């Protein structure tokens, strides 16, 4: 097991390196000079050269990358062009707000999706299965930014039961999950964010459970005289590794999908920061946010792989 963990960790390093290369090169994808946004259009050649030297853009690209990587490793993501604040501060603040959303969306969507999928998988072809499968397809197909707007229309505009946007009257700094008046702001974004993972996890679980139910050992268990409840327990346990892999990807989806949902609800998280950075053409923030989010994703995938190998030893050996 320790050998497997070590091997998996070693494998994650080149991936993380590659991810940072992609994030770094985002600056060069931008049309024109990366300095265009900060320099006035009538800047003299001297000024351009000076600013270039100040930002290190006059060096060869590999040197620039190594210097950038060195700074990133010690937590220096540069400075936001729009606000002049350190990117690290902006990103960490936004990430904690996104974490608040994900913290509620993950248990909700994972447990609901798993239970729905398990029920549907245990009764294939019945009405209950059809209802759940239908709901799951809708969950997979729904554009969550639209679902958010529809929920706002129903619960905020028409019923006036829940707040439409934001993080509470006191803003994001004073937000506390332990206060009911603040929690009300969580309800709609969390539901919106959870819908797609619920659908995907329900579909995966249903398929996994149906597949395991077809295996010979289930017949053996039944022949042994085990109660149906005990059989289902075995089946669910065997379906878990497959579902877990998908849950790991869905965690990444929740992080990534938050861009659109946070924009709809003006939730000041990493996704909202990202869409602001795009509008302002604030490349350091764009770079920092994407790097931070994708590193979280890489780490989660690593964790899920390790968790999977703990549950299913066969994975370790392959």
């Amino acid at each position: 097991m320790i050998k497997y963990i070590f091997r998996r960790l070693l494998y994650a390093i080149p991936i993380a390196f590659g991810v940072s290369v992609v994030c770094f090169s985002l600056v060069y994808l931008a049309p024109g000079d990366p300095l265009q946004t900060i320099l006035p259009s009538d800047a003299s050649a001297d000024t351009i050269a000076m600013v270039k030297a100040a930002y290190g853009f006059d060096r060869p690209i590999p040197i620039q990358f190594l210097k950038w990587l060195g700074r990133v490793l010690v937590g220096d993501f540069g400075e936001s062009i729009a606000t002049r604040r350190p990117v690290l501060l902006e990103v960490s603040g936004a990430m904690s707000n996104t974490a608040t959303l994900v913290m509620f969306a993950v248990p909700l969507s994972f447990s609901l999706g798993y239970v729905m999928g398990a029920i549907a998988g245990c009764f294939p072809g019945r009405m209950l299965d059809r209802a759940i499968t239908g709901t799951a397809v809708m969950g997979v197909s729904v554009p969550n930014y639209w679902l958010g707007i529809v929920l706002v229309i129903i619960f905020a505009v028409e019923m006036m039961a829940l707040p439409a946007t934001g993080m509470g009257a006191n803003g994001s700094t004073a937000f506390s999950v332990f206060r009911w008046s603040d929690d009300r702001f969580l309800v709609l974004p969390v539901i919106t964010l959870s819908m797609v993972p619920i659908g995907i996890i329900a579909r995966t679980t249903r398929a996994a459970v149906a597949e395991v139910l077809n295996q010979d050992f289930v017949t053996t268990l039944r022949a042994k005289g085990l109660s149906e409840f005990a059989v289902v327990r075995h089946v669910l346990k065997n379906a878990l590794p497959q579902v877990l892999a998908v849950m790991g990807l869905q965690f990444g989806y929740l992080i990534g999908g938050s861009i659109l949902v946070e924009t709809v609800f003006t939730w000041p998280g990493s996704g909202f920061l990202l869409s602001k950075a795009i509008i302002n053409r604030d490349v350091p923030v764009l770079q920092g946010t994407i790097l931070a989010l994708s590193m979280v994703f890489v780490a989660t995938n690593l964790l899920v792989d390790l968790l999977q190998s703990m549950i299913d030893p066969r994975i370790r050996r392959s």
Partner: protein
Amino acid sequence: MAQSPMAQTMSQTAILDRSPAEGDEQVAPALKVRGYWASVFYRLRYDPVTMFFGAIVLLIVLAAIFAPWLAPFDPYRESIIGRLKPFGWKSHLLGTDELGRDLLSRLLYGGRVSLLMGVVPVCIATVVGGGLGIVGGFAGKSVNTAIMRTMDVFYAFPSVLLAVAISGAMGGGIGNGMIALSLVFTPAMCRVAETATAQVKSLDFVEAARATGAGTLTILRHHILGNVLGPVFIYASTLVSVGILLASGLSFLGLGVRPPTADWGLMLSTLRQSIYVNPVICALPGAAIFVTSICFNLVSDGIRAAMDVRM
């Protein structure tokens, strides 16, 4: 096994090792034995759900293609007095938008951009990713490592994030959006093709072909391609719905088309400001995305069941 593309566990992609001469087990022996594709279409024809939603997909595509002839009004003609009017107002069947433009006409025109931006990247990714995957799976060793590890890096980004990052950095627009989405879909496509190729490669008939002196290209064309195309095609069909969702999402964030061009995502984004005035109208472009995405999903589920490919 029904799974979304985002939830794909590529390692489980099964191969499609049925030769076209193999008959369908549902058919009585006395009847004419169907070929593989004939039996797929046979199964599809008797699948009412897939046929129904397939018909809707066809209608949506046709409506988008023939938008200039179907649209009752000019989708760009604004009207100061006729803004955000309800259904049926002055023969505007679905009302008008925030600038008084006919919503039905804009929805018809919007479908063109939305479908295009969703489908084209999937096609590009199928060709590029599928090609790379076949090469990687067939060549093995260092070529495989080089291709697959590069793909792993792009796979390490959540899909929405990568799409937004690339098209955001490149400055938005339809073309950049399509490039970004192609890059998002290519690694997944590549994995599907690579897994299928690697599995087929080790089968006896490939070995036999090699023994009879067939060259690499001949083997690829006659023995690998046909067997890999099934899973690749199925996977591509599941991606179409995701492609439409992501493309409209990019437009929603302002990274797709520029106003006043009609596009479902952009329409949703601009109409969002008016939810307090006419909420039903504001929800319509999103409903169009939703319906299209559901139909593509169900059709792709049906095709997968008919082609009997496990993913």
